[in-house]
């Protein structure tokens, strides 16, 4: 099995690499200190198995898995046993190793990985669950990092030249993208383009005047052409 190791700690990568060298069927093809580099690698290459640390700066192991459309078999490696339950939410996770890892336990994990056949898993219900859990998330590329944004927390998207400003309950994000691109990613039951430069979350409207809406503390213009659709979406008395 061709495998990769993702861990921000060099000591951990060295230990896992050494453990892999004890198993003839394993071939470590690459090691990465962060998830972003691994995602780039996996965009170009396929592997059979990933050893994945959960705790990494900026991007957790679970965030990483959710970015992959078809994640390979994954063995989590962590100093924390508290995430074991969450790990069961993912089809691709075949085992969960708590550091420090010893060879007998490592061998057992590899046996599990070898026995696991993705083609025969009861994946339909689990896949649905995965889709449901990741369906509320939007990943945006900021300074070469993929940042997760909870879609329902977005209340406003504003076009700003070559960028868009995404305003959420927690913070604002400036992303190199277009209003058209993000519009395609947002659920139509929640979001509406009310102006050529603005998409709003209609659940977050405070009030509406003739040609503007108040969202939080932002007054947003509503185009004459978009006003009928906005009015149609409201639960008017």
């Amino acid at each position, binding site marked *: 099995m061709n495998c990769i190791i993702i861990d921000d*700690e060099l*000591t951990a990568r*060295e230990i896992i690499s050494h*453990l892999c060298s004890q198993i003839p069927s394993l071939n470590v093809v690459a090691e990465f200190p962060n998830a972003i580099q691994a995602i780039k690698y996996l965009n170009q290459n396929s592997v059979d198995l990933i050893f994945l640390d959960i*705790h990494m700066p900026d991007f957790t192991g679970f965030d990483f898995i959710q970015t992959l459309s078809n994640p390979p078999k994954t063995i989590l490696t962590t*100093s924390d046993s508290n995430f074991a339950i969450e790990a069961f939410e993912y089809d691709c996770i075949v085992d969960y190793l708590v*550091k*420090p890892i010893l060879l007998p336990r490592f061998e057992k994990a590899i046996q599990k990985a070898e026995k696991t056949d993705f083609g025969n898993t009861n994946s339909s219900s689990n896949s649905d669950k995965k889709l449901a859990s990741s369906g509320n998330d939007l990943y945006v590329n900021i300074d070469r990092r993929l940042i997760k944004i909870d879609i329902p927390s977005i209340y406003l998207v504003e076009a700003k030249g070559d960028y868009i400003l995404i305003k959420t309950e927690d913070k604002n994000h400036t992303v190199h993208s277009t209003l058209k691109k993000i519009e395609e990613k947002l659920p139509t039951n929640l979001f509406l383009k009310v102006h050529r430069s603005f998409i709003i979350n209609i659940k977050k409207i405070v009030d509406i005047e003739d040609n503007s809406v108040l969202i939080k503390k932002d007054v947003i213009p509503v185009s004459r052409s978009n006003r009928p659709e906005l009015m149609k979406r409201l639960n008017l008395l």
Partner: protein
Amino acid sequence: MIEKPNLSYIHSLSGGDKTFEKKLITILKTEFPVEKKLYEKNIKSNNFIESAENVHKLKHKISILGLIKSYEIASEFENNLKESNISLKDDFDDIMQNITNYLNTL
């Protein structure tokens, strides 16, 4: 009484491969002071969440050096830090010093 770090785990892992042992110890000696320094910087600035992340990372090295009781203290300290509680800071700092002293002997 403070625990004494040891290389039992590394010996067990290496299966007698001295080259691997030497390489791993070199990495530990390089990586540990960097992680420790980052923790010290964050705790000094009252960046408790970042400090908790640093402690989490250092826990692995504590466990590699066979410090069972120290690992428990570090885990509790990590959880406390998430609630801005630094009551175990002195104990954790002692653990850091204990490891520093030990690594200097290798």
